[in-house]
């Protein structure tokens, strides 16, 4: 990729902005984080982690598109769709150091900024601001999870669909329909029908 250096630079600036939302970081302080971070690149449709493996990394997406799913009997239940700037990892496996129950797979060619479990513990021990940044980031993660849980339970299929389309317009173009349908817990047939709601002038 010829523009790859420029792309990484832009992605790093994005990461700096993202982390500064939790704790303001000077350029220098952000620079201190970089030795802990690895860059990992994947082609499209690659399993970044498979069921049964132990998750070594917490990833922030530099560019690309990734989904996380749970294989259940003969189905795949999509539990996360993540693009640039989002965090994705097999949380339970990463933190408890146990085999992953979920699979993470790229949809597009993807680059991660990754931090390994050991590096993360190191970071918390050595960087003063990391503790607060981590706490606030995790706190935000919890609140988002709780909101999603609540919406899934209380909203109708139509409401869930419309809210997702409104808040993630670009995902509708990039993600195969069946994955979005699974993520929203909507039958593929129903999802197709609801797509008509998106046409201009229709509500």
């Amino acid at each position, binding site marked *: 990729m010829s523009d790859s250096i420029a792309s990484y630079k832009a992605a790093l600036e994005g990461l700096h902005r993202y982390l500064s939302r939790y704790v303001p970081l000077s350029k220098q302080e952000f620079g201190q984080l970089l030795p802990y971070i690895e860059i990992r690149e994947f082609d499209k449709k690659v399993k970044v982690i498979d069921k049964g493996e132990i998750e070594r990394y917490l990833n922030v997406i530099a560019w690309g598109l990734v989904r996380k799913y749970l294989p259940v009997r003969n189905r795949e239940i999509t539990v996360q769709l993540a693009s640039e700037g989002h965090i994705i990892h097999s949380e339970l496996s990463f933190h408890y150091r146990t085999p992953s129950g979920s699979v993470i797979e790229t949809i597009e060619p993807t680059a991660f900024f990754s931090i390994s479990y050991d590096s993360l513990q190191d970071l918390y021990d050595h960087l003063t601001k990391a503790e607060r940044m981590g706490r606030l980031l995790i*706190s935000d993660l919890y*609140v988002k999870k709780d909101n999603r849980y*609540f919406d899934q339970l209380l909203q109708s299929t139509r409401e869930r669909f419309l809210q997702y389309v409104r808040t993630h317009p670009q995902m509708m173009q990039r993600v195969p329909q069946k994955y979005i349908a699974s993520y929203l817990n909507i039958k593929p047939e129903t999802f197709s029908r609801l797509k008509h709601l998106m046409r201009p002038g229709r509500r």
Partner: protein
Amino acid sequence: MLEPLRQYVNDYVALTDKEFSLLASKITVRNFDKHQRLIQPGEVERYMNFVVRGLVRTYFYKGRAEVVTVLAKERDLISASASFLSGEPSNYFIETLEPTTLLSLTRDDLEELYRTSSRIERLGRLLTMQFVLIKEEWDHEYMRLDTRERFVRFVEKNPGLMQRVPQKYLASYLNMKPETFSRLKHLLKKRPLQGR
């Protein structure tokens, strides 16, 4: 009364006596009768609570049906956590099921403790992560296990709660019809769980 909290905290961060006293100095002991409400939707959660004695449930209404989302017993934390962390109004009710004693910290006091002690801030980070992981684990079990498996798993993990929690709440917590719950309970009596 603080000893159980000390043990609980120790599993995450071994605080020094001085650090723990600092934490303890901000704690309020709150006593509740049974069936008392701690918070309801629309209110902002002020407290993070540790259960010393008693039993508490978190729930909300889906239409007219109550959905129980948390059952907290001795040595569990209980709070409308999302509201506590975000400062936004709670979506949930919290109510005692038995006479209950809580050790409570306000959000403001906790923030102050974080500013004073990086070790207490670490404790905060690890406990918040624990909340995330518990939710994640619950989600996964919910998707992966069928009704019977969920029931068996719950009983194995929480042997004491079967006697203490009204059956309709347990059924709601496990997202099954009360009839299904009764049927599974009979199964349990006839055949010990190890045989599954």
